[in-house]
């Protein structure tokens, strides 16, 4: 039997506000334990939460970027659960009136476009961090009270590739609108996966499991593939899927049932009497909407139309606003979009990755970068030397002309000199010459390679090719 996988997501995104959601403690990753805490986020008796207006603004921005409806009225509720990561024994969250409702985004996976429904986005406080050791658990409340939003999707995904595309889209959108850096590795984006399978053609959903502890987008993909396979195997063996929460073990590449907190699903929500409702006027919502920057999807489309770039290029260039800005600034100086795109997608991407850097850390200015491209197109250096200079610029921050000067990398266009070299190499290597004569045209690459080597890669490749061919044909 053929099966179809059905997936829905709950994505938690930590907002990059200066302070926590209900108190003036710093929202900062990586501080010493319990140094960003105060009586409010430690839930001391008698303290009162006051909502951070920026968290509301960020939540609305996020909702608008995912085409959500923004209701005028929204409120905050208490979600009761007893666990030491929350000192109050409840979490301030939103229940029946979330900040954003019904949205939709289009993602592209496997060469097709898919619409993913957003059920809702609500804002809430993050919990503290627990470290389990020996017979104790150590509690750090620095993260307690950090503003979070939870994006809940409809069960609209059918495979891991769509999930990856969606998470990439969310991450890019949040970065563009300045709401979050969405680093799954640092926990600023976290994702729970609801997954079930059903025979193709069936309209009822199968029993689902919820997967937690997904720490990267690739882990999400692997967890989905594993879990879907597990469901199908259980069903094919005549068994039944148990509705439960399972933990993804990234090292073992498997999911394991989590011991459920007893009756943990009875959250007993009720309106938080310490807080008052949030009322957003239509004017306020329109104002936030008008201030949104161009979003990745729109940018992607524009790059295809305006710069005549392939969709693939446009997709990669717009994944980060920093890459997009570097591209746009470069094109503004030097109107060769495809050449610029190639360097960014291949050489820049590789160097960033090798050096463990992000797009926001690009160490080369658009001016120096385009100067390099001009050196190549003007024939001052050849294109393979160009890549070498680019790498040097990346590492040292030097200007391209200076590197070319210092390392003596100027292209050798001296046809007489190259010709002499070609003739000498042909005379010294009778065997490949015979091969060439015997019909092995590939033998030519040997001579080209030898000439390039002798000129330390600086000879004009076009001249070398022409001369090698002419001389071989004469030989």
């Amino acid at each position: 039997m053929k099966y179809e996988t059905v997936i829905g997501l709950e994505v938690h995104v930590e907002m990059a506000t200066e302070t926590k959601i209900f108190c003036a403690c710093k929202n900062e990753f990586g501080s010493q334990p319990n140094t960003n805490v105060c009586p409010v986020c430690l839930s001391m008796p008698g303290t009162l939460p006051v909502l951070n207006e920026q968290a509301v603004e960020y939540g609305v921005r996020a909702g608008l970027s995912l085409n959500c409806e923004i209701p005028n009225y929204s409120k905050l509720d208490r979600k009761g659960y007893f666990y030491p990561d929350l000192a109050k024994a409840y979490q301030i969250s939103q229940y029946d009136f979330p900040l954003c409702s019904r949205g939709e985004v289009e993602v592209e996976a496997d060469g097709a476009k898919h619409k993913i429904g957003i059920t809702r986005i609500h804002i809430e406080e993050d919990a503290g961090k627990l470290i389990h050791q020996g017979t104790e658990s150590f509690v750090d409340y620095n993260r307690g009270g950090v503003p979070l939003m939870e994006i809940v999707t409809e069960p609209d995904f059918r495979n891991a590739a769509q999930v990856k595309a969606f998470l990439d889209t969310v991450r890019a959108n949040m970065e563009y609108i300045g709401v979050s850096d969405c680093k799954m590795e640092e926990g600023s984006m976290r994702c729970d996966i609801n997954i079930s399978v059903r025979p193709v053609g069936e309209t009822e959903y199968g029993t689902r499991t919820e997967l937690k502890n997904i720490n990267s987008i690739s882990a999400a993909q692997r967890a989905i593939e594993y879990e879907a396979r597990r469901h199908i195997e259980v069903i094919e063996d005549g068994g039944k899927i148990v509705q439960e929460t399972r933990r993804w073990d990234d090292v073992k590449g498997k999911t394991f049932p989590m011991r459920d907190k007893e009756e943990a699903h009875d959250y007993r929500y009720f309106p938080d009497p310490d807080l008052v409702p949030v009322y957003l006027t239509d004017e306020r919502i329109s104002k936030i909407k008008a201030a949104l920057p161009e979003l990745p999807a729109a940018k992607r489309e524009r790059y295809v139309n305006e710069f005549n770039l392939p969709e693939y290029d446009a997709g990669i260039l717009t994944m980060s606003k920093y890459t997009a800005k570097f591209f746009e600034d470069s094109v503004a100086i030097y109107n060769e979009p495809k050449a610029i795109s190639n360097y960014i997608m291949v050489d820049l991407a590789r160097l960033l990755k090798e050096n463990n850097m992000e797009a926001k850390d690009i160490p080369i200015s658009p001016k120096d970068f385009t100067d390099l491209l001009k050196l190549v197109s003007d024939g001052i250096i050849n294109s393979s030397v160009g890549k070498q200079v680019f790498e040097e610029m990346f590492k040292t921050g030097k200007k391209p002309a200076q590197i070319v000067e210092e390392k003596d990398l100027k292209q050798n266009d001296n046809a007489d000199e190259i010709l002499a070299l070609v003739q000498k190499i042909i005379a010294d290597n009778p065997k490949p010459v015979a091969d060439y004569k015997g019909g092995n045209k590939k033998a030519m690459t040997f001579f080209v390679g030898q000439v390039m080597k002798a000129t330390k890669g600086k000879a004009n490749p076009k001249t070398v090719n022409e001369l090698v061919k002419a001389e071989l044909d004469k030989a």
Partner: protein
Amino acid sequence: MRVTLEEVERIASLSMLSLDEEKKIMLRKNLDDILGHAQKLNELDTEGVEPTSYILKQQNVVREDIPGKVWERKDMLKNAPEKEDGFFTVPKVVD
């Protein structure tokens, strides 16, 4: 009585409280009194009154996103029954 002993036990377990029989009976009575008191509200005529979650007219009470006072960790840990290396410590809890 509106509240059953089972309900008391369930609420206690959700709150991680273990109660002896005597306490359960006492709390059952307390909770029952509270509910009975709240029940009085049902006697009011609420015809034409819009339902609300709040009794205050206020809305949008917010603060600016500006860091405030930095509190000393040693002060913040002062009330902790158990602490170690700048952490609050609790008996080990597992997921």
